[in-house]
């Protein structure tokens, strides 16, 4: 199993991360929420015990959490390769658990008005509202709304939040939980393992092809509140599922931590596609561990779009465990002023004739900084493995910065590996050309950015490409003076 701590080192000279300056038009709002359960700020054994008791968890889970807490406290910050901005996270000021104490809702009518207001404020277009009718939305720590699960339940699919899954499907949960990403994989996967709450659990029975994408909308809505959702998706033999995750957060005055763990298991011949489009406020530390295991002839594809946040560190990975397994990561990162997108992908080949594809595009605007870290590992004893890595960076204005750290370790001589990288700039001449046609500077930049990612976005489901385009527009509007 690979370890995040072994990623190639970044240069540590500049870690200035001037937060503030940009006002995010989306998500800049808060509503009063009556938090029935609240673990207070700071993290110790009591916090973990509190969370576990509120959730009425089985003893083995508490055990698991406490062990994870120990690992978290012991592990150093990975600042030997990652940015020292991580040292600015004040773990004592973070609130580790919060629950609205609400049962998941079934119909739109039953959803409380303030939550509806929240969705409305997020500017979700009319045509997407109907989509929301089938959404499993997480309001703070707990799912606040769901109805798609009834539809897919008819096919035998289990779709619920992780708390519910632990209670109702312990045998299957326990079998796969923490197996793809062990607690000690990295400091933040350990943290998540100690305090996780919310997130989705999906089990797709053999041969079932889930027709519609399963969707979850995550939000954070409390100051200093960190979100630690835990998602586990198991696609049994020959099944297929698409999962979509969207995130948007209100603007906070102090730093906030989001640290999720997502584990995917694609059994023989199964296909999982996991799509994320997220837009965090630019004081959020977004430190997420995502990995999948693809068994024989299985396919896992991560589509990961990161916009906003103060620092995002995320390297979706696939362990290609069975013969002819296929892994793909399509990643788009946009770093605006005061933001650092440290993203990439990991492909661990562990069987013959496995294929991995990485396409990463990053956009740096103003003082924004983007870093690509890739890890492709093909050991000597394997035969016929293929990897294709392409990373492209787009710079908008000369102050922005981009770094690439591809680490491709390929041993053995029957493999085919290809790596391409490019850096391009949106120049003044292009912006002027578009402005001369009547587009504002922001519209022109937005068009250039959309053009840059266009070939990737075309692969997205319609509503997500619309969403992404809208987020890019907003981000560009904020970036011109």
């Amino acid at each position: 199993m690979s370890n995040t701590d072994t990623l190639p080192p970044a240069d540590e000279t500049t870690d200035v991360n001037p937060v503030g300056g940009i006002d995010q038009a989306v998500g800049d709002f808060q509503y009063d929420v009556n938090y029935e359960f609240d673990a207070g700020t700071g993290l110790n054994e009591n916090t973990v015990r509190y969370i576990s008791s509120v959730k009425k968890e089985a003893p083995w889970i508490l055990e698991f959490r406490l062990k994870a807490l120990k690992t978290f406290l012991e592990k150093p910050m990975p600042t030997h390769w990652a940015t020292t901005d991580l040292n600015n996270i004040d773990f004592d000021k973070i609130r580790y658990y919060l629950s609205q104490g609400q049962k998941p809702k079934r119909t739109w009518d039953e959803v409380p008005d303030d939550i509806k207001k929240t969705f409305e404020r997020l500017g979700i277009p009319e045509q997407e509202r109907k989509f929301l009718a089938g959404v499993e939305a997480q309001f703070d720590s707990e799912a606040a709304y769901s109805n798609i699960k009834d539809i897919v339940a008819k096919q035998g699919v289990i779709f619920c939040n992780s708390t519910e899954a632990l209670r109702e499907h312990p045998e299957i949960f326990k079998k796969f939980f923490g197996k793809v990403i062990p607690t000690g994989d990295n400091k933040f996967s350990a943290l998540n393992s100690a305090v996780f709450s919310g997130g989705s659990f999906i089990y797709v029975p053999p041969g079932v092809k889930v027709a519609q994408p399963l969707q979850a909308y995550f939000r954070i809505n409390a100051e200093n509140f960190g979100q630690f959702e835990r998602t586990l998706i198991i696609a049994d033999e020959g099944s297929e599922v698409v999962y979509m995750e969207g995130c948007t957060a209100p603007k906070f005055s102090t730093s906030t931590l989001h640290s999720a763990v997502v584990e995917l298991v694609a059994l023989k011949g199964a296909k999982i596609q996991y799509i994320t489009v997220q837009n965090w406020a630019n004081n959020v530390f977004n430190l997420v561990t995502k990995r999948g295991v693809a068994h024989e002839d299985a396919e896992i594809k991560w589509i990961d779009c990161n916009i906003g946040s103060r620092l995002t560190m995320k390297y979706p990975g696939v362990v290609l465990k069975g013969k002819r397994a296929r892994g793909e990561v399509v990643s788009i990162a946009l770093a605006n002023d005061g933001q650092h997108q440290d993203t990439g992908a990991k492909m661990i080949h562990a069987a013959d004739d496995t294929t991995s594809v990485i396409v990463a595009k990053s956009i740096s605007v103003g003082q924004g900084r983007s870093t690509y870290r890739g890890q492709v590992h093909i050991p000597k004893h394997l035969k016929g493995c293929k990897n294709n890595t392409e990373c492209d960076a787009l710079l908008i204005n000369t102050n922005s910065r981009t770094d690439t750290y591809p680490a491709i370790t390929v041993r053995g001589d029957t493999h085919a590996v290809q790596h391409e990288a490019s850096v391009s700039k949106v120049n003044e001449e292009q912006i002027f050309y578009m402005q001369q046609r009547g587009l504002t500077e922001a519209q022109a930049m937005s068009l250039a950015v959309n053009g840059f990612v266009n070939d990737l976005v075309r692969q997205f489901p319609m509503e997500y490409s619309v969403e992404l385009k809208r987020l890019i527009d907003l981000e560009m509007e904020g970036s011109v003076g």
Partner: protein
Amino acid sequence: MSSLEIRDLHVALADSPEKPIVKGLTLTIKTGEVHAIMGPNGTGKSTLSKAIAGHPDYVITSGDVLIDGKSILEMEPDERARAGLFLAFQYPSEIPGVSIANFLRAAVQARMAEGEELDASGYYKRLYSKMDLLKIDRKFTSRSVNEGFSGGEKKRCEILQMAMLEPSFSLMDETDSGLDIDALKIVAEGVNAMRGEKLGVLLITHYQRLLDYIVPDFVHVMYDGRIVKSGDKNLALELEAKGYDWVKTELAAV
């Protein structure tokens, strides 16, 4: 009737404002008129057209540019464009990943009132009819703006944009260069079809040949940042026959 008035315009590079390129140029273009500007390389023709459009490389050190009596110099380039000014570039930019259809759609939408929605089928109908007129293959709608286009294709694409955006004033900077004889005729037909009461044209060219097809109402000779001679279409014929040396000697004699 509208007018584009260039009043004693002085233009320099923003980086070195002390070195003027355009040195006091005065010209009024009314809708319905076609003016041609000819002049040797490096005289400041492109500088003039880009400065009018608001290119950030240039600064206007004195003089004014007005549309219908109102100065446009305080306006952003996109505001000038929406006010009816179009520049057909001598060297059009490439915009990777942005299709012609989407680009023009955004440009058309930018001219509509807030909240007004573009009628997509009407838009495509119009786009296709303009493309047919300019004999541009419909496949081009999905190609990225100017990316990988041949020189002539780029120029034709400029005219397509002009046709779609229906400006009041079009500054056409060497639209004829890079066009083969057939393409030249097609482009000229396209421009002639747009000619009329609603459009004023400033045609920058080196060749009389273009003026055989787009017959100008006025011809101006630009030399060292100024208009040094104006006349009707016969001036272009004279220039073709005698070359710029003739203008230079005449100037020296004054």
